[in-house]
């Protein structure tokens, strides 16, 4: 008699937003493994139409409470490129610092609060408060530093206020920057402990060849603007984002999917590390070596390692930027802005991967049409492809229902999906 087993996860926990996993296995063989987005669609692209350029990025940042700085910066960049505004060097430097703060706080949040419980066999981080207070305090210190970096530079961690069209509205005082610098230096010890923790746990050994898409850097590890590249050898101009993403709808799902050279691709920390490994800070590459993370890595669970590597890079690079600002912080922080009828594209690397905003303006500086392509939207197609492969291997190895459910959930979590963003 044939034996059919199913795993049904409704509203997967420890991810942002609502997504379901459905798995069916018959006689040790994969029948079906699906990732479905059931989150409420939000229609931001329609809501952005009519917004004045001074409001567009404020509204766009509300797409996400975790990566609101990325959404704000993508909107600002789209607007500035539409109007032909050159952002002054001081503003560009401060925006990068705010970006590092966001990446740090988001990666630490994911690694310790969302992913670590799986690696330690726990339902959440809450029991760790008693059993591993050292780890929880370490995470809170690092998360707090990321938040402080955002607060100091952008005026707030969630929904920035100082990042505005043309540049920044506020330049932090030298004393504030020096305080940040000492915090950043102290964080290197914490990150070393974090790396020791991650090296001590076992990441599931699953590999599937994937096309990795990110911004391509020239001199710096890329976070804001530049060429669009893939590990399959595609390289396009930022303005060609539509040809890089090729969004399409799937039945019964509120998130779109994307494709490039294959039927899916992935974005995010592992894509960036794979595509720009040589541009990482040497300290970050040293941490990568501890996990034997080198390009091109096709193990989705190694995204956890990539997050830690990027956290180290962000802290080291933030020290450099703070020093630059302390040595040479004078000059205009915002350029004058003249609206014109034009379309602009802004691509930034959000914590979860490459994010695009395209804004078309009329001559009064009002949005005529908006398009946003979200990292999680791009990753959903790759999760669709990873899941059946993972389940097929687990089923063949005789994994029980519990293990199937755990590893499928962990696989989705490894992408750190932000589902509300995906259905913006």
């Amino acid at each position, binding site marked *: 008699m044939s034996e059919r087993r199913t795993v049904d996860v409704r509203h997967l926990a*420890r991810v942002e937003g609502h997504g379901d996993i459905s798995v069916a296995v018959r006689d040790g063989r994969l029948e079906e493994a699906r990732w479905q987005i059931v989150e409420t669609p939000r*229609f931001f692209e329609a*809501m952005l139409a009519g917004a004045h350029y001074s409001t567009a990025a404020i509204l766009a940042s509300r797409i996400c409470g975790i990566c609101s700085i990325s959404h704000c910066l993508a909107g600002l960049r789209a607007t500035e490129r539409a109007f032909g505004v050159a952002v002054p060097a001081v503003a560009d430097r401060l925006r990068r610092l705010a970006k590092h703060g966001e990446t740090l706080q988001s990666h630490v949040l994911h690694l310790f609060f969302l992913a670590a419980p799986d690696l330690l066999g726990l339902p959440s981080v809450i029991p760790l408060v008693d059993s591993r207070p050292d780890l929880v305090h370490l995470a809170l210190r690092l998360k707090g530093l990321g938040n402080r970096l955002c607060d100091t530079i952008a005026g707030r961690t969630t929904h920035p206020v100082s990042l505005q069209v043309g540049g920044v509205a*506020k330049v932090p005082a030298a004393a504030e920057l020096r305080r940040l610098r000492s915090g950043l230096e102290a964080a290197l010890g914490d990150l070393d402990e974090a790396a020791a923790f991650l090296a001590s746990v076992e990441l599931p050994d699953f590999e599937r060849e994937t096309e990795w898409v990110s911004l391509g850097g020239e001199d710096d590890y890329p976070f804001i603007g530049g060429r669009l590249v893939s590990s399959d050898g595609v390289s396009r101009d930022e303005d060609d984002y539509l040809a890089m993403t090729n969004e399409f709808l799937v039945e019964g799902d509120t998130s779109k999917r994307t494709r490039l050279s294959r039927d899916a691709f992935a974005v995010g920390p592992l894509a960036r590390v794979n595509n720009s490994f040589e541009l990482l800070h040497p300290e970050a590459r040293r941490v990568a070596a501890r996990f034997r993370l080198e390009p091109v890595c096709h193990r989705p669970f190694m995204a956890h390692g990539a997050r830690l590597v990027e956290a180290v890079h962000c802290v080291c690079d933030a020290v450099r930027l703070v020093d630059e600002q302390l040595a040479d912080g004078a000059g205009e922080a915002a350029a004058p802005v003249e609206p014109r009828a034009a379309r602009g594209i802004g691509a930034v690397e959000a914590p979860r991967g490459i994010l695009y905003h395209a804004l078309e303006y009329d001559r009064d500086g009002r949005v005529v049409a908006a398009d946003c392509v979200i990292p999680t939207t791009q990753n959903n197609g790759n999760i669709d492809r990873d899941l059946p492969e993972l389940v097929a291997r687990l089923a063949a190895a005789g994994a029980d229902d519990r293990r199937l459910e755990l590893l499928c959930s962990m696989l989705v979590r490894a992408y750190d999906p932000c589902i509300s963003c995906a259905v913006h």
Partner: protein
Amino acid sequence: MEIVDFRQLSSNTGDDLDIALVDGSVSRQDEVERLVRIRAGARILVALGSCACFGGVNRLKNACGLEHANRVVYGERPRDTMAVRSIRDVVPVDLEIPGCPVSKDEVERIVQHLVFDVPYSFPVYPVCLDCRQRLTACLMDRGRLCLGSVTRGGCDAPCPAGGLGCWGCRGPAADANLEQLVADASSRGFSGAEVAERLGLFGGFEGLR
């Protein structure tokens, strides 16, 4: 204090709650059903954030028209959606904490009051007082439009301090004088339409602007 159900943080679930904090607005039937279930299991239901309290920025969708919004995003294959509603439009709410984002300090203070069963009173003063408190020079005096004079204070005014006027995310202060705001704005060159548009972004001034 025990965290019973917090899907974003924990795989544990439960529905017997002393306090339920609910964020987000409502625009699908499954959300209505979940909300009714949460209300039935909770002693105190708190709407958390401007979306939960007023519909928030999501309310802009209602003005777009649902069919149009659907066509813009999903083309010829529309997804189920309803007009955006706040939590209190769907179930009775015991307390509302507005803000986009909410103030962490305020949420912590309110949860402490609820746990110890001490009545909580929101500040009745406007955001202007927060600016005075932290010595932020008036944005209106610097030629920027700001809704601080009519918006509920208690947020510590991070927006004016960061060089951005107040956008009214917390909704109206007690006795908000909108006529005076329009007059002050007009004397600085801002039209009534500009003020009304800004008052409309977060939804807290619906019916007043």
